[in-house]
């Protein structure tokens, strides 16, 4: 590749993605730093950064916003370099909008003043029109003259979103947007906001530790651990094809069964032989552990495997059973609610693994 090729490749990459992080590293305390994070976000797409607390996802968001300087790598927004080792464009010049965990509404301003806070450069007529239009879109017209403390959590959330969107930012950033809301409201707001973003083609980066939020909002999700992105994929693939044990553990429920590779496409476990269409990555004879999701375990009264119910958690439409298949094997199983087994009852089950996921087993396990 000639130098010219590299330059061209770089510039097309930049123009294709509205947000581009290239090998971003932040040294920020011994634990909270991030290393070599690269992300590309195309215009109009919503991506989530998902990870346990302390994994560095908020640092990435702060670096994009310009609230955190980077020690290596670069960040481009809309084709313009905004962060680099010797560059840190202040947040107010980056054309981003941000929604915060605590909403951060200005307590001394009314709803419409809050929404209009970022429209200082407009004349008052246009500003009022923009604010009215946004409040209408968010269903907040009736609350325009209220103060933030007079609103419910969901309303505050909508005001925060309206305020961030008002200046028509290139990029919207959301930091744990739903963690202050209760479970019921959370799901509804997730749906509402997802629709709002899609309909208006808003490019958005969302940081969350909750996989349900990430799956509801993200076209693509980056799972982070210890300051690096471990897997960048669609929610479906994250669940069904996790690249390593950390992702498999972090996303969804499941157990690992010890097994051994017995052919190009089959793994032997104590409970049954599991196969997959694509070739396995490991030679025959490799000791592996196989991920069994609760939905891989199917109720089958003709039982190839007989397991004992040791715990049950009623989830409404489904029941999550913890089953003991033999002395060393515990399974999680999600059955429809009409299968009602009590603790101690014997249940016949069968493994139906459509996406065989296996990782080499560490020695001695």
């Amino acid at each position, binding site marked *: 590749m000639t130098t010219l090729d590299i330059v061209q490749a770089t510039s097309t990459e930049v123009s294709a993605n509205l947000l581009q992080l290239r090998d971003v590293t932040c040294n920020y305390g011994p634990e909270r730093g991030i290393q070599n994070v690269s992300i590309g976000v195309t215009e109009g797409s919503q991506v989530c950064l998902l990870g346990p607390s302390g994994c560095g996802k908020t640092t990435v968001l702060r670096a994009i916003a310009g*609230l955190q300087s980077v020690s290596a790598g670069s960040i481009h927004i809309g084709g313009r370099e905004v962060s680099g080792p010797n560059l840190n464009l*202040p947040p107010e010049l980056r054309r981003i*909008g941000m929604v*915060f965990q605590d909403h*951060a509404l200005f307590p001394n301003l009314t709803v419409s003043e809050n929404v209009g*806070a970022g429209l200082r450069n407009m004349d008052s007529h246009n500003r009022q029109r923009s604010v009215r239009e946004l409040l209408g879109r968010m269903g907040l017209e009736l609350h325009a003259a209220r103060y933030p403390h007079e609103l419910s959590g969901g309303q505050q959330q909508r005001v925060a979103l309206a305020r961030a969107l008002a200046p028509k930012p290139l990029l919207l950033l959301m930091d744990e947007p739903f963690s202050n809301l209760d479970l019921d409201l959370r799901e509804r707001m997730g749906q509402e906001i997802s629709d709002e973003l899609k309909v208006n083609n808003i490019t958005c980066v969302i940081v969350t530790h909750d996989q349900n939020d990430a799956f509801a909002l993200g076209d693509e999700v980056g799972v982070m651990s210890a300051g690096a992105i471990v897997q960048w994929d669609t929610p479906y693939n994250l669940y069904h094809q996790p690249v390593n044990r950390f992702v498999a553990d972090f996303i969804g429920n499941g157990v690992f069964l010890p097994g051994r590779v017995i052919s190009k496409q089959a793994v032997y476990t104590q409970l049954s032989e599991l196969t997959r269409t694509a070739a396995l990555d490991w030679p025959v004879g490799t000791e592996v552990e196989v991920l069994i999701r609760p939905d891989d375990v199917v109720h089958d009264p003709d039982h190839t495997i007989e397991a004992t119910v040791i715990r049950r958690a009623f989830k409404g439409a489904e029941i999550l059973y913890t089953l003991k298949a033999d002395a060393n094997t515990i399974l999680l199983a999600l059955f429809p609610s009409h299968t009602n087994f009590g603790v101690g009852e014997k249940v016949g089950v069968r493994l139906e693994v459509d996406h065989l996921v296996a990782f080499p087993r560490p020695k001695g396990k």
Partner: protein
Amino acid sequence: MVLGIRRMNSFQNGSHRQPAHFARKRSSWNWDWWTLSSLILAGLAVTPVVSVLYLSLQPSGGIWGHLLETSLPIYITNTLGLMGGVGIWVLVTGLATAWLVTMCRFPGRKLFECLLLFPLAIPAYVMAYAYTDLLEYSGYVQASLRGFFGWENASDYWFPEIRSLGGAISLMGLVLYPYVYLLARSAFLEQSVNILEASRVLGRGPWRTFFAVSLPSARPAISVGLALALMETLNDYGTVDFFAVPTMTAGIIDVWLGMGNLAGGSQIAALMLLFVVLLISLEYFSRRRRRYYQQTASRFRSLPSYQLHGSSALLAIVVCGLPVLAGFILPAIVLARLSAHFFSRSWTPHFQELALNSLLLSITAAVVAVAIALFVNYSRRLRGGPLLTFATRISSLGYAVPGAVLAVGILIPFAVFDNTLDTFFRRQFGISSGLLLSGTVFAILFAYIVRFLTVAVGQIESSLDKVPLSVDMAARTLGYRAGETMIHYHIPLIRGGMLTALIVVFVDCMKELPATLILRPFGFETLATHIYHYASDEMLGEAALGSLTIVAVGVLPVLLLSRFISTSRSAYERVYESEPVR
């Protein structure tokens, strides 16, 4: 004298959050601007202390020997005696009253909780003038006694001499005990109820519980209160001068103003810094220790209160009533009576002019101090880092340094500056630049700001910490620059705290005496120096109106403080009042 109110408040608020810093920029001009300006301000604030230290390290010729042979031993003995006496007085009064209002229930307890603060409103020197008027030979008390018993003159009876070391100790103790009272009170309130109850269940009576449990765990807070009270004692000039008790502060002023010997004054000032360092250490280490002692979560649970009846209730009322009566009500009445009597002679254009001087000077100092405090705190919030935290701490050292020491520390560098400039102008242009800094109102202003900056820095720090950092980020991403964010969002959100800081600094400046005496331009008077001069000339009646004015102004921060106490109390009061233990 109300210096340190904010420091006490921060105690009552408990620990406050240390904000994570906002953003570090290595490459923008902005970074340098906020950080550099803050560092320069902090550097200016610490100049006086540094220059006193510098002078003390210079070869002093024969001054030390001379001082040692003559007056220095007397200064030191008096200072130590005064501090010891005041220390014991404030501990006994402060602890007794704090324990009674927090742990016991008796008629008027709630009222006393606030009333006990009022002596803070009266500067010690005003106290001295009022009590001298009351207790001296020609005063009301002795005259009445003579009239009653038919005594002819002083040789007929014995009466304690108010103008003595003992008198100074009593009067300072009367107005300084609220420091210990306030801190001990909040420490008692924060104590773990479980520990107190455990002590009772294990068979200890009220007294043994107090000495074995309450007192030891409140000790760090009490030490802080004591340190603050002793800093004020060290700072006092008006009282010890009037009572002819030559302490080190009096020594500095006598040696400098009386004998014109600046080198001698600065040597004493340097020695005083040693006392200051000890007091700051006492305060600092007590504050650090306090964190380990008081970590109870259920802060507002009911304390095991002792219901007092009959004679014990009466005794509690007397114990709490006496300090209020002697420390505020009595002197206020004396001053009011005197002022009324001498009003026509006191209310002159001259008085109005110097009252205006005080007012303008104090308002300017308060506004500048609050502005600096806002700037330094906001820089720290914006940039963080140990350097700016250090700068904030350094800039608030002034509160511990006695006004007289501070004044010497300002006089010297200002004089050097003026002389250098003057020499330069004479040589270059053949004209004299005169005195630009020293001997001007600017020097007084500088002293006020350095001495009372702590109050403003602390108050604004705690207000600003309550504004979530996400508000900053929200404003920044909405297109506001750092400075605009402060003006549009922070200032409106913390204006209550800023107002409190303004009032407290303003009042402290109104009362300030020793630094003003040393630094004022010739013929320039403030209320404080005015009443000091009349009092020195034994014209207490003429001094009364000025004194009363200062007391009236001094009541302002006390009202703020008592409002704070009653609001912070209401949360636990409900439980407290509904659940008697015995």
